[in-house]
Each structure stands twice: as structure tokens, then as C-alpha cells.
């Protein structure tokens, strides 16, 4: 059995158990800090973890992290960015002004002090700081690529002393890149075939189970 403390409560669970499942056995109601329950894609189970013999506190996704003896865990509630960094869909379409939009919506981005707090905080090991700097210097596609596997856990938001909200900046870059540049030729042709009436569906046609 592995013994650990979660939100101040002792838990004793078999080896190989994840922190989230251990929390359930410790009597913590799983109503807040859990979503996908182990796939590691929703970011709800963000937690601070201290391991025995390690001075520093690290971040983790509790549904993906196996328990260790002597671990101390505390879950973090949803972290809301200080500023909403608001924009609308109309901000996404014009590639010529994309960089202006980035600077206007995320004015703090240029003030990154390269402290790497975000990099250390990211449980997915993304190069968050690099992504922020790429966006701030106008490389939207480059920034977008850095955040391809971001689960929006907001741990980098909590870590950033400049209130940059790195993941939201990264997502803005992703949305700009997609909405502004992705124009698939085959999709456009099919849309044309449908709107012109050349392609329709005969809903009564299919009567056989086998094609």
C-alpha cells in the first residue's frame, strides 16, 4: 500500500492508483476536480504535488499521476485569468491584421520576463514560454503549433507573474491560424456542389442492408 495526503486527508491505496482515484477512497467528493477521469485531456484535475525528499512543489494532472509514498497533494480550483482577454469571431478572419489583434488583445505578451514559470507549470511539457514569445513577435503559426496539445488546465495562467494567460494567447493564435488561413479545396468544392443543387440526398433510395 502507498500512503499519501490529499487536501489534508490521509489516503492508503494500492500501488499504481492515480491520485484522483486515491482522492475518492480518501472520502473527497469528486465533483469539482475531475472530468475525463484519466485521459488527461480536460485539465480539471490540476493539482500541486510535493514528493518526499523534494523541496519544491510541482504541478500535475491528478488523473494521470500515479500515487507515491509520502506524496502531499492539493487540488487547485479553476483558475480564471485576471483579465478576460476578450475578442470575437470577427477578429479571427483577417490574416493581415492578425498580429495587431494579438498585441491588442494580449498587450501583456510583449512583457514576458522569461522566467520560465509557465514551462515549469505545464503538466504536458509544452514549451509555453517559447509559444508566448513567438506570438508576441508575430509568428502566429509557430505559436499555434507550440500549443497543439494544450489541455487548457490553466496552470500556466496561475504561474505567470505578468498575467499573460499563455494558454489563452496560444489558443487565440491557433484560432487565428485556422479561421484565417484554412480553406480546404475539397470542402469548398463540395459546399459549392450542395448550394448549387448539384448534389442532393435521396432519402428513400437505400432499402438494402448490404451495399
Amino acid at each position: 500500500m502507498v500512503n499519501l495526503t490529499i487536501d489534508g486527508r490521509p489516503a492508503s491505496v494500492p500501488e499504481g492508483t492515480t491520485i484522483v482515484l486515491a482522492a475518492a477512497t480518501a472520502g473527497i467528493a469528486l465533483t469539482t476536480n475531475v472530468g475525463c477521469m484519466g485521459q488527461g485531456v480536460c485539465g480539471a484535475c490540476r493539482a500541486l504535488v510535493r514528493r518526499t525528499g523534494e523541496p519544491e512543489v510541482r504541478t500535475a494532472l491528478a488523473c494521470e499521476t500515479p500515487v507515491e509514498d509520502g506524496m502531499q497533494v492539493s487540488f487547485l480550483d479553476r483558475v480564471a485569468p485576471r483579465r478576460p482577454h476578450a475578442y470575437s469571431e470577427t477578429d479571427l478572419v483577417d490574416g493581415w491584421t492578425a498580429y495587431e489583434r494579438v498585441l491588442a488583445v494580449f498587450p501583456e505578451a510583449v512583457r514576458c520576463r522569461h522566467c520560465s514559470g509557465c514551462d515549469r507549470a505545464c503538466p504536458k511539457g509544452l514549451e509555453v514560454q517559447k509559444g508566448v514569445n513567438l506570438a508576441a513577435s508575430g509568428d502566429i503559426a509557430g505559436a499555434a503549433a507550440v500549443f497543439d496539445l494544450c489541455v487548457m488546465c490553466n496552470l500556466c495562467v496561475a504561474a505567470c507573474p505578468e498575467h499573460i494567460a499563455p494558454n489563452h494567447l496560444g489558443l487565440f493564435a491557433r484560432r487565428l491560424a485556422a479561421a484565417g488561413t484554412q480553406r480546404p479545396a475539397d470542402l469548398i468544392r463540395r459546399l459549392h456542389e450542395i448550394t448549387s443543387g448539384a448534389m442532393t440526398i435521396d432519402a428513400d433510395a437505400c432499402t438494402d442492408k448490404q451495399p
Partner: protein
Amino acid sequence: MNPTEIPAAGIPWSEAIAALDGGSAPPPAITDAQPLLRHWHPDHSAGGPRRLAVGASAGQDCPAALADLLQADALIDDIDIAGCATVSTEVLVIGGGGAGCIAALTAAEAGAKVLLTTKLGLGDSNTVMAEGGIQCAVGAEDSLQTHFEDTLRGGQMAGDRALVAALVGDGPASVRWLIERGMTFDMEEGQGPSGRLRRKRAGGTRVPRILSFRDVTGLEMMRVLREAAGLHPRITVWNRSPVVELLSDETGGCVGAVIYSLHLHRFVLIRARSVVMATGGAGRLHLNGFPTSNHLGATADGLVLAYRMGARLREPDSFQYHPTGIAWPPALRGQLISEAARSLGATLVNGHGHRFVDELSPRDVVAAAILRECGEGRGVLRDGCVGVLLDTPALERARPGILKTTLVTLCHLAHKAGIDPAREPVPVYPTLHYQNGGIAIGTDGGTEVPGLYCAGEVSGGIHGRNRLMGNALLELVGFGRRAGAAAAAFQPVRPSGRANLGHVQEWRRALVAAGLPLDVKAPVLFPPIAGFDLAADRALGRSDLSARSLEAALQVL
């Protein structure tokens, strides 16, 4: 077939590995899948379906565990909501997954004031977990008609033709809508953003039709939708606010809902002109004892609430057991290995190293075949967990590098299991994955209850008795938009009528008349593993909050 009945006999792991030669002969062809399905598919479980005795679908069969909830009493009574704070909105959207966000965005873009209330956090849903992709007939050799027929046949001809035509016909416009909101799709190798979309093959389809973003399509979709909904000035989001009951007026129309705030430990009433139910599926009910791939909140709440109010159900007895949940280790059992692995050519082999089914047959057939192998002693045993093998090493040998570049999520899961998929096969076993049926809807997402719309996994009629990979994501976009638009346009007959639990009183009378117990309460909100107790949680509530500060407090979270 019930998994608890499956003998824990099988071939030990080491023997099965030794039998694996990668060059296995093609599997036997299946001409008629019906006997296999009847004998081995869990929908035909020996434990027996239950016939519904009350409600709009009385006489229909469904799994006993679900029937208990559909025919249960409400969680609350008039006394619980007397004096509760009431908030008003035009459109109320219940559920913060893909369907809910899209309905909310569409209604808001049409000018409506929208309140979206969800059980966990916005986006914590089945949608974010989707891996494989979304179907859309864009290929030159493909057509809407082919997609239509594949979907209808995949569903064993049980789907509603008008709904299937709407689903398929919306496809290209749905994908465009997603791109316009900033979702990225993979392009064919070497093609820029104005080239051709990359297409993968799905089981039960004649041509490659799955569009995707790597193997994290749902993550890419959900983070865009969550951001868009969160930033929209006409959408208010309440997290941690599960709906516990709907509100009705004197004509039986739906005019709002009661939420329980997990933050404030109290009920709040929401009055709305119309309501969109988008609460997703039922995997966490672990029907027939199966593990599940679903997120924690998938407990059939919306199904129960809409049924209680008079909505009809379709195919409530039909569930999808995804063939390839991971079978070992126990802590991960049930988590999904996407069909993408099989689309790319990975084979399934039993403990003797033999292939036993065409891996790209419809999911119900593949799942039944796996249960047959395990039930007849040809499964593989590891630490008491039974399954068959997904031969990832052979795939890697045939297409070097494919695991790392294309099957990122599979590698990630295998890594957590302590398996190197390039060298070791991954043990798999069917996992409860998707609710094929659901609440009956029309092409505008409308139900039989005036003012109540449904979108996404909670609704039924599109997938018949078996859903094809990629059609669920397509459904939630197309029907999320349809339901959102119709809900925004809906005008009630008696706009200033009552909003209360009248339908619950009627329901109780029906339960009593049918001799059903009143001590079973539903919706369950959280599965037992979450350790949530409504009564205990309510005891933590504060009573000194004014209505105004309460509304403000709800918005922050």
C-alpha cells in the same frame, strides 16, 4: 452476455505473446452478423432488458439499470424550491459539452440571451475526449448519398431517414462553421491550408471520410468551443451547477430548470423561454457491469428529466460498446483506444495469435466477436483481466514511425500502462462507449414537449442501433446548431405562465398507479465513485445570500 458471466479462463499473457507472429492469416468472413450479435452483444444480455411501464415510451425495452432511473421519482419537491432564488433567461442550455456550447453560440448569435449551466466545468465532457475524428463527405469519390447510406446501414436500418439526411447534408457546412470558429483540421501530407483535407477510414464506411486533428480531435474542438462560448457577451456560463429537475407550465411545456449549485450548496430556479438539453450520454451507469470510456458526468440525467416531462425515447435499449477499451491494468480499464489504430491497419488477435474478425466491421460486430473469443476461452489473461490483443508491434513494423506520429493518444495511454506499444501488443476489451438511442427529436432538435429541444448524445434517432465512428461529433455540430436556432426562435403559447413542478406531481401519480416504488430517485448526477451525497452537501449551504450576490457568485465560477 454479461461480463460477470464470462469465465475467467483464457490463455496466459506469456503464452499469448509467444503465439503472436504478426503474419496471421485473414480473419474468417462473416456473411450474417445477426447470430453473433444476438448471442454475444451486451444489448441482448441474459440479465434481460426491462419493459418500461410508465411514460411516453411505455412498452419499450431498455437495460434494467436505466429503466430504474427512467421510472424513478424526482430528487426534489415543491418544498425544496419554495423561496429559492429565481434567475431569468431567454434560452437555457443544459450541459457544457460540444452540443451545449454550439447550441448556446448559435442561439446567442441569433440574438438571444443565453444561460448555459453545466455539471462539472465547461468542456469537461465526452466531447473533449473524442480522438478519432468527425465524418464529412468531402472526398471526390464520396457523396452525401454514400454517407447517408453508410450511416443508415451502420445503424441496422433503424435510423430516422429525415434525421440522417439532415446530419449528412449539414456535414460540409458544419466543418466550415468549425473552421470559422478557429478549429484546425489535418491536411493531406505535403498540402498547405488550401489543399485537400486528410481523410481516414472508419469501420462500416465504404470510403475514407473521417476528418481529424491528429488523434485529439475532440480536444481541438472543445477548447475552441469553450473559449468561444466563454467569451460571447450574450452567454452566461454557470459551472458546477447540475440540473436536478425541469420546470413546467400549465400546458406541460418546458419553461426552465432547477439547478443545484455545488458551490453555494443550494437550489436555484432558472426561468427560460426555451430549453436545450445537451447532457450527453450514460457510460457512467456501467450498464451490464462493463467498464466505460466516458467522462465522470455521463449519467443519463437529461434522458431521465426529459422522459419524466413527457418526451419519447428511441432505441433506449441500444448501446455502443467500443471494441477496444484497454483491458489492463485495472486502474485504466475501460479507457479508449481509438478506432484510428484499426483504421491504420492494426489487427486484433486472440490468445492463439489468430485474427477472428474483420477489424473494420461495424463496432457492434467487432465488440461481439471479442466477447465471443473471451467467452469461449480464447481470450488473454493478465492479472485476472481478460481481453484480446491489439497488434501494435506489427503495425509499427509495417509502417515504421506511425505510432509516434499519428497515434499519440494511444502511445500516451500505453505509456501510463507501462506498455511499449512498438514492442508489446495492447490488451483490449469492449468498453461502454455511446448511447445509440435517446430522446426522440425532429429535424429542428424539438421534442414532444413544447419548448424543450435536444442535441448531441442525449438525443436519438440518428444512429439507429449502431453509431459509426465520427458521426457523433458531426451530430453535435449539426444538431447543436439546429437546436440552438430553433430554441432562439421559439415563442411559447403562454409566455407569462407558471413555472413549477406540476409534471412531477403527475409523474408520481403515474408511478403509483403502475405500482412502481417511489424510493428510487433520479437523476443520479454523479456515479457512486464520486462519493457525492446531495442531502449531506445541502447541509453545508449558507442561507444569508441575497438573490443578487447569489447571481454574481454563480457567474464567477
